[in-house]
């Protein structure tokens, strides 16, 4: 199990060294700024290091061990103080593959039976979108803490039901939006909060791939089950499975949810029987006049995946973690020249000399937001925070709001495209 590859790139270290290094990295990131330290979801990570006593151990079960669930499993096996006690999947090959990785874990094909397992503290839900709500609600009813993959739920009513159930549960809830824990996005948030790009005037985000977005299907009867992302009965496709990440960042950075959205989508390339759009284009309107422009397609990968946060003083590229100043600062002599003209001085400015060349590529390619690009995109830290919050018995403030805002946004976008009309934020929605 220790040979499991980890996005934290600590695979060469022993278990103890790994744990020590892991905690050290958390401390470094969490302690890097007072603003970040105030973000509520960082609070569990600042707790005392995990001890060896059984009371410190958090016992989790994973519901759904497909692609995403397997990745979470790999992280959890390396998260200090976590025991993966149970796995559940109604697709036998996935369940067996998962159980082979975790000695002693109990296997289930029905998640409701897993929820009855004694001693289980919480569950990680990594199943198709249409199952999220009932699983979250059942887990809260069973008194379990819940980590739910994005997007929150299949309908806005279901989002509301989860939020309501959470409010009365006193359980920990976390959503699989790992950018909340990405050092690079946290630094970007800090810079935006400090006004380094000025007020945010537009956010543009896109996720472009070139491929059919299908999983291999061993038998045609399994098509809908394994390729649920392509069918409307189970998912909202590109909006819920990709756009939700960037809509979470947009809502987080703007500190609000949109009032409405418009959009168009179609299937213009992958005409293979799928029901969900292969290209989506949505514009969200925010109360302060800011717009978020989102598009995604799977027939061209040139522009890749990016979120561009723009203001009068600069642009932040979130996914690559770079800041581009709107106007690179001129040489000191030129600043003096400009000031002199503005103030009516006629004076010699010391400006000429042998050529200036960029000190580093940063001058041309933008400034890196964090010096060392972490191999963890935030997923490992988000699971560590979940486990730590359970251990502390303290819900993570603000997390359900993040989940609801992005979850509702992407459903609004899907509705706007399907109904070809402007869709408003649901009145009376309680985050």
């Amino acid at each position, binding site marked *: 199990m220790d040979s499991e590859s980890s996005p934290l790139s600590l695979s060469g270290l022993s278990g103890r060294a790994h744990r020590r290094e892991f905690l050290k990295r958390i401390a470094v990131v969490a302690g890097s700024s007072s603003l970040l330290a105030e973000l509520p979801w960082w609070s569990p990570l600042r707790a005392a290091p995990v001890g060896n006593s059984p009371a410190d151990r958090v016992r989790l079960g994973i519901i759904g061990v497909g692609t995403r669930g397997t990745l979470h499993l790999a992280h959890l096996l390396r998260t200090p103080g976590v025991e993966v006690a149970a796995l559940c999947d109604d697709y036998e090959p996935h369940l067996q593959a998962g159980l082979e990785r975790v000695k002693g874990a109990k296997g289930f094909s029905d998640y409701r039976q897993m929820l009855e397992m004694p001693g289980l503290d919480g569950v990680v839900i990594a199943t198709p979108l249409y199952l999220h709500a009932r699983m979250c609600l059942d887990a809260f009813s069973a008194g379990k803490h819940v980590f739910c993959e994005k997007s929150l739920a299949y309908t806005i009513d279901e989002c509301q039901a989860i939020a309501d159930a959470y409010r009365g549960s006193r359980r920990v809830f976390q959503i699989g939006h790992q950018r909340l824990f990405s050092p690079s996005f946290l630094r970007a948030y800090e810079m935006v909060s400090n006004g380094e790009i000025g007020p945010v005037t537009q956010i543009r985000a896109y996720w472009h791939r070139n491929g059919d977005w299908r999983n291999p299907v061993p038998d045609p009867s399994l098509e809908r089950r394994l390729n649920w992302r392509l069918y409307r009965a189970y998912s909202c496709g590109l909006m819920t499975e990709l756009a939700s990440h960037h809509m979470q960042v947009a809502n987080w950075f703007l500190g609000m949810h949109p009032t409405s959205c418009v959009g168009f989508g179609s299937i213009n390339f992958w005409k293979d029987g799928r029901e969900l759009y292969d290209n989506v284009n949505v514009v969200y309107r925010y109360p302060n006049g800011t717009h978020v422009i989102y598009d995604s397609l799977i027939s061209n990968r040139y522009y890749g995946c990016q979120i561009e946060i723009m203001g009068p003083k600069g642009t932040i590229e979130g996914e690559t973690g770079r800041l581009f100043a709107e106007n690179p600062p001129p*040489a000191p002599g030129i600043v003096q020249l*400009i000031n002199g003209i503005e103030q009516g001085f006629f004076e010699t400015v010391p*400006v000429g*000399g*042998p*050529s*200036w060349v960029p000190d580093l590529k940063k001058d041309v390619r933008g400034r890196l937001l964090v010096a060392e690009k972490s191999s963890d995109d935030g997923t490992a830290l988000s699971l560590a925070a979940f486990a730590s919050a359970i251990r502390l018995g303290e819900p993570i403030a603000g997390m359900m709001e993040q989940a609801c805002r992005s979850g509702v946004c992407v459903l609004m976008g899907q509705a706007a495209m399907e109904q070809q009309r402007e869709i408003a934020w649901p009145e009376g929605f309680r985050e």
Partner: protein
Amino acid sequence: MKESPEPPSSLWANVFHRSCFAMNTRFSMVVVGIDAEKAEDLAISAERELCACEQLMSRFDPDSPVSELNRHAREKAVEPPQALWEILTLCRDYWKRTGGAFDITQWPLNCLWRSHLERCEEPAEEAIAEARQQTGMQYLDLDPIVHAVQFQRKGMSIDLGGFGKGFALERLANILRAQRVESAFLSFGESSITVLGSHPHGSNWPIGISNIFEPLQTVHTFHLQDASLSSSGTTPYNRMGRARLVGQIINPHTGCPIEGYRTLSVASHSAIEAEVLSTALLVTREEDRAALLSGFSAISAVEIVYHSQNGDFVPHFQWHYGL
């Protein structure tokens, strides 16, 4: 008829500035006395022109015509775009007019010296001799009939770095003039400067040459009007905690970098000539410089050499012309 009101006192405070990275350095543009919208359009035109110049002349862009020449002109005659052909013939003319002091084929020697100096070493005599075999405009064949280029020597490579900045400045100045800009300051990395008209509060643009050890101190002032200023020389270079000399300019006559800390600045009404001459004069012996300049008009130039005195480097006027 009602008398028109007095112009506001802030008439000349209308200053537009834009900097961007281009041609491996920072380009800055200061335009005075035009409204912001027009200036913004002007900046877009300027950036487009810079991009076109860079695409034509960059040796770092593998798809540029210069890269194409550097890759293939040894094996076969290559026909570059007409614009590059004209630039190369112009460079050959300047090579002749400067007695071989301005030479765009010094890249192999530059690379040799740079790689050794970074290790605090000097290249061996044999290595210098070998690199010199790969340099020299006399080995650049320019076929005037079909406008084709061929390198006579293996390993040859052309570099239009400095020349390119002068070329781009002339193009940009023309764009600004066409838009009736009367007062502007353009700079590439502060080594290549062009001014249009004069400073809004004076009769010229007083441009100081910085002390390379004390950049905010002026060691000499050029008073420019519709003119260009180019500076070449060595700069103090700090790496691994040690200040060292990096020879940026190779003397084509010796195959070695120029020695000492020095800056040679040339003012001319042509940005290209300022560029050509600042490099050429730096590698030309003092006693030969006046003869070289006799073929050029309206040039002024100054050379500052920095002498070590009690642990400091003190600027000293080594040579000047036309002041």
